[in-house]
């Protein structure tokens, strides 16, 4: 693959034309989709690839000797190579295809955790975690008798690294689970500082990159972590596919997770032996077309340029924070613009986020209202829910203007 010089900027207005979803009106208005953190829309390039694959090259992979199966296998494994390059994995064998980031994390929690955790051990998560990088660890810790601890966040929504010693003193830290970018607040977490701390304690570091991989360049070798999870659907790819990157040595030493077809070497009544990595972790018929679509999404993002995407969203976040600050009665959560990704969370005094989101929807503006799968963080912030607007490569500043306008309307209605 030719090395492309990353383009420094992108033209959101022209990229928008790639996305059929914007061709309709919502409640008679053009769609202002400000909920890309929950899931991104799909460009024609990805949808075309998906359809073309089903129509011309579909077959089950790694099984058939015939042409369609060979073709499908080449496409499926080709996608694995693209995803591996996307996160700078040493080899494509380090990429396991899963259903989503959530399953990627469960895979590690079950397959690594059930065997390697026990009483006296500690699993450490952060107060900023999405439930998907929180509940699996809490559950597997309970199943294995290991302890469970939480790194605190400060009032600005950033990790309190002064907390590390307190946590390390509480037991034998075996797992540190942290997200790279918080989906609630947009906080960019200092994973680079957690990794040496965790490794010095002999712990593995499991990074939830669900909110980072779509929006900035992620480099697993640079991060130095041990596992990294992300989902295609947040990256302009299809639903029902995600990836787990893992260090080859760890993947090879690990137990499998789901058991069944394809992941075996030899099945006998007395004993079964496992196939090579990554087959060992891909039981049953794989997410074949979804992988092909994932590969197309990676191509699309690389074509736009991850650096350009990050910069674009950063500019939008700064603009949004500035405009929102002027809305009377607003509370803004999270760090300043220069330490956050394209996500802003806020509340309007006296108006529940559901009502805000509903009123915005009437104007064609889609935002998320709720706990964002971060109830521990909501408890820390002392709220049940927030409003959240999040941006992507197809977001234009006018959509933020419409958001602000809608907030004024909500205030007027609720008087």
């Amino acid at each position, binding site marked *: 693959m030719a090395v492309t010089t990353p383009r420094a900027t992108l033209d959101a207005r022209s990229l928008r034309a790639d996305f059929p979803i914007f061709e309709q009106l919502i409640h008679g208005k053009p769609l202002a989709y400000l909920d890309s953190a929950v899931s991104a829309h799909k460009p024609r390039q990805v949808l075309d690839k998906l359809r073309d694959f089903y129509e011309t090259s579909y077959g089950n992979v790694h099984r058939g000797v015939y042409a369609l199966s060979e073709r499908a296998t080449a496409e499926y494994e080709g996608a694995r190579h693209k995803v591996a390059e996307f996160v700078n994995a040493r080899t494509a064998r380090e990429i396991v295809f899963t259903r989503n980031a959530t399953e990627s994390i469960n895979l590690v929690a079950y397959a690594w955790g059930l065997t390697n955790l026990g009483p006296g051990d500690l699993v450490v998560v952060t107060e900023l975690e999405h439930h998907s990088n929180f509940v699996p660890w809490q559950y597997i810790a309970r199943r294995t008798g290991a302890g469970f601890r939480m790194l605190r966040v400060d009032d600005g929504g950033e990790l309190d690294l002064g907390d590390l010693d307190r946590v390390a003193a509480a037991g034998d830290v075996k797992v540190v689970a942290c997200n790279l970018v918080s989906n609630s607040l947009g906080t960019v977490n200092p994973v680079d500082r957690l990794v040496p701390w965790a490794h010095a304690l002999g712990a593995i570091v499991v990074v939830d990159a669900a909110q980072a991989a779509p929006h900035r360049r992620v480099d697993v070798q640079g991060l130095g972590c041990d596992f990294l999870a992300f989902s295609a659907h947040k990256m302009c790819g299809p639903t029902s596919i995600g990836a787990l990157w893992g260090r080859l040595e760890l993947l090879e030493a690990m137990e499998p997770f789901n058991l069944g077809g394809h992941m075996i070497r030899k099945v006998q009544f007395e004993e079964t032996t496992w196939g090579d990595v990554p087959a060992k972790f891909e039981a049953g018929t794989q997410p074949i077309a979804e992988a092909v679509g994932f590969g197309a999404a990676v191509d699309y993002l690389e074509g736009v340029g991850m650096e350009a995407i990050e910069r674009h969203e950063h500019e939008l976040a700064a603009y949004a924070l500035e405009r929102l600050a002027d809305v009377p009665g607003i509370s803004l959560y999270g760090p300043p613009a220069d330490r956050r990704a394209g996500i802003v969370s806020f509340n309007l005094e006296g108006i*529940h986020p*559901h*009502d805000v989101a*509903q*009123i915005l929807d*009437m104007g064609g503006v889609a935002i998320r209202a*709720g706990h964002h799968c971060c109830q521990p963080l909501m408890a820390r912030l002392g709220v*049940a829910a927030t409003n959240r607007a999040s941006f992507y490569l197809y977001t234009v500043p006018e959509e933020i203007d419409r958001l602000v306008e809608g907030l004024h309307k909500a205030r007027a209605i609720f008087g």
Partner: protein
Amino acid sequence: MSEFEQLYRELILDHYKNPRGHGQLPDADVRAEGMNPLCGDEVAVAVAFDEDGDTIRDVRFEGRGCAISQAATSMLMEMVKGRKASDVAEMPKDDLLEEVGIPLTPVRLKCAILGLGVLKVALHKAKGTPLPDEWGTSASELRLA
């Protein structure tokens, strides 16, 4: 009237801002709480019965939530006070929705009927009346309680 104004019509906003039957009920015979796991909203309902053991003498709610859930629960309090527990337990959700009187999407529907569900759980605990359909068996009820 625009869809906007329909949804947040005067009556809804009035109930939201001045909820009826809101607060504690110290001499309650039974209490129940529930939450909408999608948004974290919570409602607690307390019921006191008349001497006949069936008529709802008083009913109050507390909680936090959106205008729809709070207004609907407030309306519900007015609707059921003085009625028989056995009747209320059978009350179709459409009776409440008619009172609420605005077009609701499925997600917002869950907001509107949260209070009704919790009330039915309370009646079930006190009188063994049927639970709302959607919750089916006792396993769910326990999680709701």
